[in-house]
């Protein structure tokens, strides 16, 4: 047995690792997470900034680090948008350009009614020069980014009003995979310019070396996929199910109409079609991806079901829907506790099984080592 283990072809270990990751990926179990203080401080910082604050996100990573950092970018973008902050995206990595597009896609789809390019978010694209680029934008942003990624001069955009340098941002977020990354943002921006507040999201490999910067030079940090998962958990706790996708009054009426012939699902689809509501929206209602319907759709439903719209809206507000500032879409429209918005949390189950496999391998390797030593094979 021991001899077989000593001779073990490493490809069996590869197969074990493949299965340890593939099985949880297929089964997708959900594991809970609690934010640690270092992650919570990032969350609190974004949460407590007044709505409309300027936030610059530096997405300094490439496809090889996207599995770890992509979920952070998405969670931080969503949180900033939920708080109504104005977002500026840049990257110091040439391969980071499409990473910005992934983030802005979220604003264009999930926040389409509130976020408009150039008004409250801007993609400045790639800036060459590594540390020199950071140093330069600390005192003059337009010297590195004379125009945005679409080729329009920076100063002509509405969001650029009053912005001359990085020091005009209320928060800088560095999501970095290496060089240039969080370390350089600390060295060249946060340390010499006290006006620059910095938080970071980093890969597993580069997380431990950033700890000495916390909390003096870094307000908070999301270390590795675990940090991203904790952030998603915090986001879900704050912006998760705040109400019901269908306010109680609507739900009751639909329940009355359903019966043995017509299931709740089919009647909801039927009524939604009659009300002229898009199928995509109906699907979101049925699979729980939204917290509360937009105002116009509640009115459409009410018309078809012959209920007073105001009564439903009031019920929805009592359930937690936030239609403030005369918005059609409530600010907590999407349910961020839904697994669609939890890429990092989904990746924690494969972490668990792979970590356990690693521990088993280390123990097994050491048992073999000590047995060999006892036999006198090894010194």
């Amino acid at each position, binding site marked *: 047995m021991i001899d077989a283990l000593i001779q073990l072809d490493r490809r069996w*270990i590869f197969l074990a*690792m493949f299965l340890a990751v593939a099985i949880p990926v297929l089964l997708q179990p959900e594991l809970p997470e609690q934010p*640690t203080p270092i992650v919570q401080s990032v969350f609190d910082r974004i949460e407590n900034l007044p709505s409309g604050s300027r936030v610059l996100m530096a997405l300094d990573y490439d496809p090889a680090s996207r599995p770890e950092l992509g979920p952070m970018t998405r969670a931080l973008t969503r949180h900033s948008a939920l708080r109504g902050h104005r977002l500026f995206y840049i990257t110091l990595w*040439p391969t980071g350009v499409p990473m910005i*597009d992934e983030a802005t896609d979220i604003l264009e789809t999930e926040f389409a009614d509130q976020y408009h390019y150039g008004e409250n978010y801007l993609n400045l694209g790639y800036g060459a020069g590594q540390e*020199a680029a950071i140093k*330069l934008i600390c005192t003059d942003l337009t010297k590195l980014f004379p125009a945005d990624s679409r080729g329009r001069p920076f100063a002509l955009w509405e969001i650029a009003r009053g912005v001359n340098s990085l020091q005009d941002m209320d928060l800088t977020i560095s999501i970095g995979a290496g060089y240039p990354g969080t370390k350089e943002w600390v060295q060249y921006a946060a340390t010499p310019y006290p006006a620059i507040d910095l938080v970071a999201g980093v890969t597993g490999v580069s997380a431990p070396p950033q700890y000495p910067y916390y909390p003096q030079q870094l307000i908070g940090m999301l270390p590795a996929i675990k940090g991203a998962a904790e952030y998603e958990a915090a986001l879900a706790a704050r912006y998760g199910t705040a109400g019901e996708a269908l306010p109680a009054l609507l739900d009751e009426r639909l329940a009355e109409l359903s019966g043995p012939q017509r299931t709740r699902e089919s009647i909801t689809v039927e009524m939604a079609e009659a009300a002229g509501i898009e199928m995509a929206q109906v699907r979101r209602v049925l699979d729980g991806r939204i917290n509360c319907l937009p105002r116009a759709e509640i009115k459409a439903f009410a018309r078809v079901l012959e209920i007073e719209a105001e009564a439903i809206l009031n019920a929805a507000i009592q359930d937690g829907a936030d239609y403030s500032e005369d918005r059609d879409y409530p600010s907590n429209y999407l349910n961020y506790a839904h697994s669609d918005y939890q890429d990092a949390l989904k990746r924690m189950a494969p972490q668990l099984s792979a970590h*356990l496999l690693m521990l088993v391998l280390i123990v097994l390797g050491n048992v073999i080592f000590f047995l060999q030593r006892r036999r006198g094979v090894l010194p």
Partner: protein
Amino acid sequence: MKRTIPIIIAAVAGLVMVVAFFVPPLIDWRETAEEWFNILAAVAMILGGASILAMHLRRISDQKRGWGFSLVTLIAFAITLSVGLFKVGVPPMAEYPDRPWTGEYITHGAPLWWIFQYLIVPITATMFSLLAFFVASAAFRAFRAKNAEAVLLLGTAFIVLLGRSYAGTLLTGWVPESYAALTLPGMTDTIMGVFNTAGQRAIMIGIALGIASTSLKILLGIDRSYLGNRH
């Protein structure tokens, strides 16, 4: 001229950066130098690409072993460069449809975007993910508790691997809140916040001193290794 002028250039450029730190009115000089630096950094990227091209061209012309793969590199390079530089498949800006070169060079659906999404992303991401397998193999073969130091390293890895996954909560979730520091996640937090912070800080201080001395050597013209050899 071949060696003296570069040394003077390096010293003056570096000193501008240092002096501007202490003399804020020199900020314009510093910014100009940084702007030039950034442009040269982009040109260096172009130079890097061209060097790779030259290397593979040589391999093909010499018909070295595996030159067929160099040909693949070269064709991939030529196609990507042409579709990227000529903005193939990129629509113009909606506000200026009469100017074909105004669109973003990487646009959803355009060939360069396709190349990035379906060639660069899968290959680079998978190459890095291979390390998950090799690290597992190394853990089995090389991670031995031979002495006290190795035990410390292994023990820490054990605690952090458990503490940073759900296993930590499962195994020590029963510990009362007031003793949270004794749970696996709590111990991991202490390791990261205390010992890792201290160790990394000491390394950081050492590196900082090393970099400061190397930089000074360059600025004072003592270290001239960047000039290459005399021939």
